[in-house]
């Protein structure tokens, strides 16, 4: 009897469990199943599972931080698709190694193989993501790059003069009129030899407005606003009603030059600088801009020649904020604000005071009234400081420790990351009440909601980017990966769905619906549009030309051979240029080439493209080259030889085409 009773209880339990599991399984959409859904592991897994052959709903462009690159992920799966080289050399793609892209990494300081890429931002039209380009900043040697969202390649890099540590960048205005750059260091402008101790009052800071050509995307520095030498940390554009303004957070308004962790943390309030760029345009039209000498590189990649060129610019137009009334106002904001975020309506400006326990939110409407009423609390170097009470919209009280960044879901909610307390906090705009909090693993920096920096966020997922992972993944020695975490934000409460490792430091990200980009993604480069000066567009154009010590090989590649594939008459001391054209016109058929002993990377050449590898042979012998991308069933046969003779040799220059020698 006892046994029977036990059996019945067990069966009942099984039945109940089955019933609950079925309910959970039927609720895949993710919305409003906070309690039942997340309690059952299977349901959460299903919500991030993109079945083999199916596609992700969103693209995520996650910067690589100190890797200098930009990685492309799928969301919600967290799968990595591509690492786009931007500011660092990449041997895999020959970026910064081949003759065509070396110019991309030129600066006024010469060739720089690395940088620190921080903030990607997708171009906008009418305040909505338009999917044309993604911009990203270099933090160390100040630059802004533009990446094409057709080719997913870096097309342009412009250096920012008078700037040092371009952190508050590369955010776009709502019609991509400008992409902005700032400076996290005050520096002598122009640079000169002076005592560091004379920083206060003598160093300055430049906020740069880089104009974007709407057709080509080409960038040029329209003007720089010269500011007091504070540290300008982050920025966001006004939108909607506040379009025409740009908001920059500052720290070190103390103007300390040493031990900043203490000396720059003394003021109770630093500022958010509100820059009226439409006013700046008026001043420029009125001739108030001053040209000053400045040396900076402007590098543009031409898709027709598959080649980048670097031009050195020599002057920049400046506007002095201390001399031009109405151009800049300071909004006092407690405790070294880091993130400076504007909500989708353009009304609220959130200052994330990183040393404060509360979040300060300013009102654009109140700011305009305060300007009208001249509700000033003195000035800093001639720039009016607005009264805190006159601009403050509200405070989110004690939401967590160390607020860094805020994004929005377009439904009246804001989400803020807290580095010290390692969590994401959801709160309500207007009422400032905290609605939910979820831990991150660990020490979150930025967060991203696709479209979160626009008038129209896609409030389905939130990606939190963590600086520390410790025990979250299998250990890999002292250096372990950093990570991103995906939350479902469709319900009242956030739900963590996925935790995935990232490339480099996932500093910040931009995301958009896959449908915005998929249809424009390029499949091949048309061979007939190839304008590379050394392209061989058919095997009949393949040849070898000697010009003194320079030997130019016009080579083609197609499944599964090189033309030419045997070359003789090369001598020690020659400089050999392999100009290699991929003749394929089929999707996803790249070929590679690598030369034994060449002091450079391989080439990885897309269909229809031409790239150049330089080899300076130092040893006599017969040296092989081969295709590095597994292109076909006969990939392993795709190889060839170069004969290298002694320096004074009279071996004639000849090359093989279709099994026959040519001279």
């Amino acid at each position: 009897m006892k046994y029977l009773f036990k059996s019945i209880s067990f069966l009942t339990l099984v039945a109940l469990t089955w019933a609950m599991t079925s309910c959970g399984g039927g609720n895949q959409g993710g919305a409003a199943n906070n309690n039942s859904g997340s309690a059952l592991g299977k349901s959460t897994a299903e919500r991030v599972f993109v079945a083999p052959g199916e596609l992700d709903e969103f693209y995520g462009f996650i910067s690589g931080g100190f890797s200098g690159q930009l990685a492309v992920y799928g969301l919600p799966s967290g799968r990595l698709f591509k690492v786009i080289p931007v500011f660092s050399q990449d041997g895999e793609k020959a970026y910064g190694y081949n003759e065509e892209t070396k110019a991309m990494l030129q600066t006024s300081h010469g060739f720089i193989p690395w940088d620190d890429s921080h903030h990607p931002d997708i171009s906008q039209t009418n305040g909505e993501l338009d999917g044309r380009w993604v911009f990203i900043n270099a933090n160390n040697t100040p630059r802004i790059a533009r990446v094409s969202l057709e080719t997913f390649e870096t097309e342009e890099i412009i250096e920012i003069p008078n700037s040092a540590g371009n952190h508050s960048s590369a955010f776009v205005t709502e019609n991509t009129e400008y992409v902005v750059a700032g400076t996290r260091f005050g520096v002598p402008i122009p640079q000169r030899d002076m005592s560091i101790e004379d920083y206060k009052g003598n160093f300055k800071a430049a906020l740069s407005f880089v104009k974007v050509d709407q057709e080509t995307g080409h960038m040029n520095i329209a003007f720089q606003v010269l500011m007091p030498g504070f540290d300008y940390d982050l920025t966001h554009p006004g939108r909607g009603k506040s379009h025409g303004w740009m908001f920059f957070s500052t720290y070190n308004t103390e103007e300390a030059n040493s031990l900043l962790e203490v000396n720059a943390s003394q003021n109770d309030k630093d500022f958010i600088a509100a820059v009226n760029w439409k006013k700046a345009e008026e001043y420029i039209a009125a001739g108030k801009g001053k040209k000053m000498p400045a040396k900076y590189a402007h590098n543009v990649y031409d898709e027709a020649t598959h080649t980048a060129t670097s031009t050195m610019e020599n002057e920049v137009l400046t506007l002095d904020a201390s001399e031009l009334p109405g151009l800049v106002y300071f909004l006092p904001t407690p405790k070294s604000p880091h993130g400076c975020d504007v909500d989708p309506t353009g009304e609220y400006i959130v200052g994330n005071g990183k040393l404060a326990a509360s979040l300060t939110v300013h009102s654009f409407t109140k700011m305009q009234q305060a300007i009208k009423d001249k509700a000033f609390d003195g000035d800093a170097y001639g720039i009016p400081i607005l009264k805190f009470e006159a601009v403050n919209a509200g405070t989110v009280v004690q939401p967590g420790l160390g607020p860094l960044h805020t994004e929005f879901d377009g439904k009246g909610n804001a989400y803020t990351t807290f580095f010290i307390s390692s969590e994401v906090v959801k709160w309500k705009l207007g009422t400032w009440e905290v609605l939910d909090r979820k831990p991150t693993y660990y020490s979150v920096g930025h967060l991203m909601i696709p479209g979160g920096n626009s008038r129209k966020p896609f409030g389905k997922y939130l990606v939190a980017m963590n600086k520390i992972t410790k025990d979250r993944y299998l250990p890999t020695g002292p250096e372990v990966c950093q990570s991103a975490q995906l939350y479902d934000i469709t319900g009242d409460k956030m739900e963590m769905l996925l935790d995935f490792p990232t490339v480099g430091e996932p500093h910040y990200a931009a995301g958009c619906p896959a449908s915005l980009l998929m249809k424009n993604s390029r499949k091949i480069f048309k061979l007939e549009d190839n304008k590379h000066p050394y392209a061989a567009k058919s095997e009949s154009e393949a040849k070898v030309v000697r010009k003194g010590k320079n030997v130019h090989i016009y080579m083609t590649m197609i499944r599964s051979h090189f033309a030419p594939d045997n070359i003789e008459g090369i001598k020690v001391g020659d400089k050999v240029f392999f100009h290699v054209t991929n003749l394929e016109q089929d999707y996803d058929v790249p070929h590679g080439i690598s030369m034994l002993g060449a002091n450079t990377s391989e080439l990885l050449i897309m269909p229809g493209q031409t790239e150049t590898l330089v080899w300076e042979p130092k040893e006599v012998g017969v040296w092989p080259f081969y295709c590095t991308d597994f292109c076909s069933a006969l990939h392993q046969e795709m190889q060839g030889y170069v004969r290298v003779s002694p320096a004074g040799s009279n071996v004639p220059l000849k090359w093989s085409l279709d099994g026959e020698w040519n001279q």
Partner: protein
Amino acid sequence: MKKSNILMIIGSLLLLSLFIFPLWNITLEAPQYPTPIGMDIWITKIADHNPNDVKNINLMNHYVGMKKIPEHMKEFDIFPWVIGAMGLLGIIFGFMGKPKLFLFWFILMAILGIAGMYDFYLWEYDYGHSLSPKAAIKFLNPDGTPMAYQPPLLGSKKILNFKATSLPMTGAYLMFLGMFASLIAYFVGKKENA
């Protein structure tokens, strides 16, 4: 003008649509080609179905030693004249209005059509059988004979990793409709004359 005459003239004009639309299509499907590659056969040329398809078919086929798809064939010189002449003849017959001529035109078209299909088959046979002796990949049939890669005349066939499908296209369907119209014109004409 009588109904049958109009029908005959329309039928003849439909034949001339072969100058505007392709006649036939051969499509190759394989897992690596989520978008199948195909060639469209016109009365004047063999063309890409999607850009670069012919180039990519040639690239695939060179591994087993198949010849390139010809850019020019003698048929491309003959077909336009034959189709043009038949179209013109049909229109003239239409104006003359004799039902027996309509039937004659239909039978002539059917003979020419069969001849055309036979010619197509011969080309396909040669294309699939005359292989380069230096081919990188040589497959044998179970009986030891060299494998051939002849595409089907009509319908689908598995060739190694590809599924090859051969089907008429718009031009051919309009031609069939035109021939059918001439046949109807014959019967309608006979009734009208009775």
